[in-house]
């Protein structure tokens, strides 16, 4: 019992949410990736304990100016929101999913000049515009501040691309829908048809699979969570017809990347998740 309580306390403190105090600062305190400080210090206040532990199992990512010299960064949006399982919701599966996806991506798109590590950034960071590809999870708990919304809106309309993943059921959808209606009020969310180039620009994806979380995937449980029985790939187009937001609802591509090396995780799901991920990157870098 003690470790659980301790972990929860650390997580609350780490997320920087003073109990009963004034309204929290928006978002976790992630510095921009040029920061030369120890990454553990950098993410300390925002990472949930399990993510922190995971982080320690992996080699430290190199830091320094070299980080901004690649063509592609798998950039995770560290948005403001409520906590999720004791940590910031944005950091679920972070950084292992990100790093493991990059291993696969670099192998599959062998001419892509991609940075091999994770890269998290807050929406209000002015360097956000340097990374035209964003990835977010657990957006059911996302609550963007006006400043974040403002910057993110400009980012997307200027040419940025945002992949949203790993959120389930009608309750979480309602939260995302509310956030997106505030973010991009004039741009509706629509279902992306299967003949859209995003499903064919590298791999031909013929059907939308529901990718279960690691637990349910390994133990053969149902693939859905909560009331999210049917997976959807929806999106938001800009005024020129370019897809700028892709929403993977009722599916968890991130877990499939993260546990792809585990022999108990069904290869069908990790295979599909990589195909989708590669297509997202190719589409984002060509449209």
């Amino acid at each position, binding site marked *: 019992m003690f470790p659980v309580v301790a972990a929860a306390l650390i997580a609350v403190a780490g997320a920087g949410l003073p109990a009963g105090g004034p309204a929290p600062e928006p978002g976790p305190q992630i510095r921009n990736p040029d920061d030369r400080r120890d990454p553990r210090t950098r993410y300390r206040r925002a990472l949930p304990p399990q993510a922190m532990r995971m982080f320690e199992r992996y080699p430290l990512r190199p830091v320094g100016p070299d980080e901004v010299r690649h063509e592609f960064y798998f950039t995770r949006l560290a948005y403001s929101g409520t906590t999720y399982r004791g940590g910031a919701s944005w950091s679920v599966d972070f950084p292992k999913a990100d790093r493991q996806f990059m291993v696969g991506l670099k192998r599959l798109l062998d*001419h892509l*000049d991609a940075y091999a590590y994770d890269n998290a950034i807050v929406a209000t960071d002015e360097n956000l515009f340097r990374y035209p590809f964003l990835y977010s999870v657990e957006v059911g708990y996302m609550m963007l501040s006006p400043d974040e919304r403002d910057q993110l809106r400009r980012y997307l309309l200027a040419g940025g691309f945002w992949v949203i993943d790993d959120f389930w059921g009608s309750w979480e959808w309602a939260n995302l829908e509310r956030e997106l209606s505030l973010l991009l009020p004039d741009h509706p969310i629509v279902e992306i048809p299967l003949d859209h180039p995003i499903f064919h620009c590298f791999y031909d994806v013929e059907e939308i699979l529901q990718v279960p979380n690691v637990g349910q995937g390994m133990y053969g449980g149902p693939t859905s969570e909560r009331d999210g029985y049917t997976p959807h790939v929806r999106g938001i187009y800009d005024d020129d017809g370019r897809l700028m937001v892709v929403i993977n609802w009722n599916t968890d591509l991130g877990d499939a990347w993260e546990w792809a090396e585990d022999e108990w995780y069904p290869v069908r799901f990790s295979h599909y998740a990589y195909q989708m991920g590669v297509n997202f990157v190719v589409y984002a870098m*060509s449209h």
Partner: protein
Amino acid sequence: MAGLFEFLFKYRPALFDEGRFTLAAPGWMQVAALLAGAALVFAAFTYRRLRPGAGAERYRWLPPTLRSLAIAVLVLCLLQPALVLSTVVPRESFVGVLIDDSRSMAMPDEDAAGDGTRGGAVREALSGEPGSLLQLLEERFQVRQLAFGRGAERIESIDQLRFARADSRIGEALVSATDELAGLPLAGVVLLSDGADSAPAELGDALLALKAAGTPVHAIGLGRQRLEKDIEVARVVAPRRVLRGATVEVEVTLGQTGFGGRTVNLEVEDDGRIVNVEPVTFPRRSTAVTARVMFAASDEGAREFRFRVAGQPGEELTLNNERIALVEVTNRKERIFFFEGEPRDESKFLRRAVRFDENLHLVSMTRQAANKFYGINFDEDTKRFDGFPNRREDLFKYQGVILGSMEASFFTHDQMRMLVDFAARRGGGVLLLGSRRSFSEGGFAGTPIAELSPLVLQEVEPASGEGRPELIHDLQLALTPQGRSHPATLLRDDRAESNELWSTLPRLSAYQRATEVKAGATALVKAESPMVRDSLIAMAHHRIGRGRAIAFTPHDSWHWQMSADIPLEDQTHERLWRQLLRWLVSYVPDQVEVETDRDRFEPGSTVTLRAMVRDAAFREVNRAQVTAAIELPSGAEVEVPLDWSVERDGEFVGAFVAGERGHYRVGVEARSEGELLGVAASRFTVDTLNEELFDAARRDSVLGRIARETGGRQVELDEMESLVEDLAVSREGTTVREARDLWDMPILFLLLVAFLGGEWAVRRRLGMA
């Protein structure tokens, strides 16, 4: 000089040229020789006895030599030297007087006699009054007067001169004058003109014919050699065809006299609308200045752009202050093939920037993985292929090619050569983008593609494995002087604002370290970074054969679109690439092209149509059926077949006489073995031109050339007496031989005095007296 010659030798040099030297008393030769010999012996004998004073021994030979020379002059006189000339029989030979009756002759001229115009001076010279040219000529010749503009016609009196003909084709006039006078004993032709020739190309052939016929043409120049105060729009070099919305780049040459150092405004007018006003300052020491003006061609169709300088106070002639250029503004879509070696944000944002450009169709092919390409925007006309095309026919369908981050080792030698040919032979535009795999860093030094690069490439050790060339950050871009007026760098409508903007844009980065452009290439943008000592070249271009190539080395211009500092509505990035790509594909030839040698003609002119015909691989085709359909201003259509010119591969020529005034459309269709090779269109206008009013001062070069090549002389009007004299000794016409004495030439007397006086002075000096 000629006057001195005439004083010493009694006659003008022309007579010595025409005549033959002879001795009228050859029978005296032996007597003279005997006398001369005796005189010389006597002189030698006399001097043998005389001894010079001390120290003068070595000049002893001088007095006898001088005396011998004096004796030789006397002997020459005894032999009666003479000049044998053919002179015309009075009133039996003919002289043609060819009078320029064109509009330029009505131009006022301060120095001219009569009513103060060049034509007035002609009227006075040909009035027949005593002392006039006509009277002098008629004393010795039968005179035929001919007036010319285009071709020459006989006139009976000067009252028939109007000085209002549209153009003056001197070559054509000389030919028709000799035809008119053929069969007559012609002593020569007198040309009265200001030298303004509206068809200078024809002059050479006409002169050859006259030279062969041996007819001397004497030219009397009319008008001043130089206007005191005048400005003219001497030349306008404009593209025949541009894309709608493109920036049109036109070179305008302004000539001036008397306005050195003055700044004038050069206005560009499109259908009554002023589209640009460019201030131009005339240099103090030169009569011409070339200004580059740019303006947007916003309306589709055949547009007549007028280039004009307003009349200046004191300017003598303002009718030559305007020229018109016909530019066809098209709305077609030019195709560009973008070959990219890796997924890059630069290519994504570049494609996005030109996505909605109505006149650019960007087809892109991006290598995602080894041998896996992703093609976007292929249409039915452009054959789909994977990777880089292997056939010229596939690549040459495009007007432009963009080469992204693709290393040299990817291409076969043939593919590289094909890309060079794409620019050099096909005339396409190639844009080379900076990246970790391009230019020197991509291993292109020493390959055919190095020819395409305007930058000097170096052998660079290729980066292996995860290694990469070092990226140079914080590049501050700045326009070079050439870049400040180049259409590809125009980021705002206002040039000054645009030039300022370049230095305020977000800083970029690049892998390329090129600091030098090749000879003949032009650097447009330079870049400075704290990481490097020298300033680098960020943008440069050059011509390759018929086409052009441009290099842009920064690899992240997309930061001008995606930046916290750039407002969403800012169009800088879009404008950069649209401008650059439009410039890249402007003036790229098609398989079949047709053009006329000018775009404006006088009514009744012969318009020569010239078509170039090539196949899909842009090889010239000589066996083709080429037909031009000309739509007249009245709406009627005329078909003109074009034939292979033989002089040049793929060139087909046809001619058409344009009578109606107005705009003409030419449509050309070329077929080979029943298969359509292509169609082309062109336009021209027929209207009254004021060609003669340009370069309005007297053109001595033209008149001098005519006289020189036909054996005549160029003279001023007040030298008409000597001109008549020259004509009288002509070998042409009805002539008699006449010997003129030379023994009484003043030069002989002067020589005699000089030799004898010299002998006497030398003898006194040497103490031999």
